[in-house]
């Protein structure tokens, strides 16, 4: 049986969180069908990607040491089909790609397929800016657009954006050693299509058709509207220097952005400004020509790369409706108040438990036998002979009594 490795390397904001959640929660059932999704935690492949690419990520990278080699080792030991999926792999350099493929058994019997899910730039550009904002960025939408349109691409923002979004370049890096039929492009359908269409495409390319999978998502990466994103950016500007990354992630990204503000779905949606559309269409057209020339396996339709037309009424996140931002801010304050109340209750409960423990400890200290023993030990510690006696006693009694 040929060992197959399906390596899903991106791109971000193409339903990857949903896919990874389904694969992780169904991994035991998949194993029964010869499909190996080697992960002991839901973000295992993210950590492996950080390790492969040596990417710092707000302190999370410290949990990633050695993660790629462990993942690759698990893939090499398994039979049948293995799936690896993380969208930040899209930005791997060519030497990192070489190392990754070799560690997965390329050239040593493994049949490696690279899968790239892609979405039109019209939706990807605003989504990437929003993702930056949810990762503490403070730059305006206008500045973001300027940076990604700069041909030099030497800013941190631009190099990351194109590293994870520029489809022909990603496939150049990941596909140089593979024949085109082992490179699969999954296109994200345009908005308003059948809700399951993207999953059907994933299911087809990963060989999951016919399996009875639990498709209820627990982890998705929800998007924000214009006033909500503007609010998070203002919060970043006000709090970044004082709020460290370990606190930012649960409070701002998770509690405010994902759990609270993403529920405000009636606000204007973030979109590409109409004047940037022609440029985005030109880029997409050049990609399409290149992809067609190379002969990759396309799952979906390359027309999907064109994206939706410009909005008639575009809302500028750099100049949002202050009324809408205020509404979002009230929701954010309410969420923070409720969270603070919850933490206060937890604090009170823990303080009560600590008080009870201290009282119990004091009661045991007040016992006459304890006080007598304490006095003896203190006296013995003052003299050399006493210290020797104590040492001998402790040795006889065993290790556990030394720290008492």
């Amino acid at each position, binding site marked *: 049986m040929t060992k197959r490795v399906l390596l899903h390397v991106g791109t971000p904001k193409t339903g990857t969180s949903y896919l990874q959640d389904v694969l992780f929660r169904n991994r035991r059932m998949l194993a029964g069908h010869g499909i190996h999704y080697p992960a002991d935690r839901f973000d295992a492949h993210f950590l492996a990607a*950080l*390790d492969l*690419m*040596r*990417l*710092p990520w707000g302190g999370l*990278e*410290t949990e*990633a*040491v050695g993660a790629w080699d462990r993942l690759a080792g698990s893939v090499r030991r398994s039979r049948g089909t293995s799936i690896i999926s993380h969208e930040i792999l899209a*930005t*791997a*350099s*060519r*030497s*990192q790609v*070489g190392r990754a493929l070799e560690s997965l058994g390329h050239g040593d019997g493994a049949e490696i397929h690279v899968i790239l899910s892609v979405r039109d730039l019209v939706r990807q550009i605003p989504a990437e800016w929003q993702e930056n904002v949810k990762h503490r960025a403070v730059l305006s939408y206008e500045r973001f657009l300027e940076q990604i349109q700069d*041909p*030099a*691409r*030497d800013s*941190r923002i631009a*190099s*990351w954006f*194109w*590293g994870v979004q*520029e*489809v*022909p*370049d990603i496939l*150049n*890096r990941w596909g*140089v*050693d593979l024949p085109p039929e082992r490179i699969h492009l999954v296109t994200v359908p345009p908005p308003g299509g059948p809700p399951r269409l993207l999953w059907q495409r994933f299911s087809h390319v990963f060989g999951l058709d016919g399996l009875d999978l639990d498709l209820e998502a627990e982890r998705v990466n929800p998007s924000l509207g214009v006033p909500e994103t503007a609010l998070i950016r203002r919060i970043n500007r006000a709090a970044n*220097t*004082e709020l460290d990354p370990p606190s930012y992630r649960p409070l701002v990204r998770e509690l405010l952005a994902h759990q609270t503000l993403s529920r405000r779905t009636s606000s204007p949606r973030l979109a590409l400004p109409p004047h940037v559309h022609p440029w985005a269409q030109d880029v997409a057209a*050049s*990609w399409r020509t*290149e992809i067609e020339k190379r002969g990759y396996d396309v799952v979906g339709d390359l027309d999907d790369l064109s994206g939706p037309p410009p909005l008639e009424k575009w809302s500028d996140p750099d100049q949002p409706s202050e009324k809408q931002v205020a509404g979002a801010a009230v929701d954010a304050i309410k969420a923070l108040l409720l969270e603070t109340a919850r933490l206060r209750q937890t604090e009170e409960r823990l303080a009560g438990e600590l008080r009870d423990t201290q009282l119990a400890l004091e009661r045991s200290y007040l016992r006459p036998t304890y006080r007598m023993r304490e006095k003896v030990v203190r006296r013995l510690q003052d003299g050399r002979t006493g*210290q020797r006696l104590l040492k001998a006693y402790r040795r006889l009694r065993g290790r556990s009594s030394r720290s008492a």
Partner: protein
Amino acid sequence: MTGPRDRDTLGQRRAWGWVAHLRAGGATPWRDWTNEGEPRGRVLPGAQQLELLRRLNAAGTPGPDLVERTLSASAPGRGRSDLELLGAVEPLAFGPPPVDPGELRDDELLRVATGLLAEDVAAAGLPEEHPPTFVRPWRTRYRLQGDPELADPIRAQLVARGRPPGGRGSTVLVLGDHLDRMVVDAWTAGCFDEGAAAWGTWLGSRARRDALPPRIDLPHVAGTWAGRVGHGRVRIVLDPAAVPGLVGVRRAFIPPESVPADGIELGRRIATTLGLLVPRDRRRALLRHTVRPRLAAQPGPRLAVPPEHADWLQRRAVGMREAVRAAGYPVQGDPDRLLPAPVDHGRVVVTSETGALALAVRLLLGDDGKEWL
């Protein structure tokens, strides 16, 4: 990217010729290179890796292992991926534009170099541990707090002499110096501990928030300890010569080795990459015991606070001096020592990527005559 399918172009053969030249120890810049060569490898190394190797060749004689490691390295962290050589590939409608490697920013070469150095440090490991010294029961009980660059080395020497800190009735000695010196020390300690933001960013953020690093906010440190052990057992020490007497030893301490400005910047960058190679505790130990001693042995001027922050520091130092006096802690030394030291503003030294890169090249080549251990 240029893969096997594109190897037969003139530009590609020229590029492979340059790779062979660099492998053989050559240092001709890419823009002056004309000879052709045969492909030797899966893909052409990136412009950053090739230019770093050229700089290594120009500065010394890298060994074959270092040559191959440089060519196959990837720059850690965010930034531009491996770049194509200008003239080696046809201009494409996508991908980062090809570059003349001679025009790359020092920062891009430094990313590759620090990746290699971090690997060296992780491989070198830690110095051999000394066996635990007999702990003297009759020692003076003390705790050392305050400026980490003053307190930490003295504490380490006392531990080595069998005098660990703590114990009943300890006197808390809060060590301090000129405030500008302490600010530099706080950043330095952070760089060799958990890692820190770049000097300018870190200092600017502190100044804007009017927030001194907690360990060098001496009145705050003293107040915290006074709350724990009592006001009478806290002393402020501004005279380093007084420390031996206060901790009950006669022999003076070996003064702490300061790291030059470029060394701190390089250490900071190594720290970031090292965090991706080893667990957190080991990283801290490697930074303190393996990286720092070698960087401290390098020549170079010391870092100083730029003049634009002089007013802030002067105001905070005066406030600190008055707070110490008002609190009534015994002070060893002159409280005026807390004020910023007079600075020749024309000679203020800041960190530089160029200096850090030059130092990285020297360390990779072993031209400093030292090793990690």
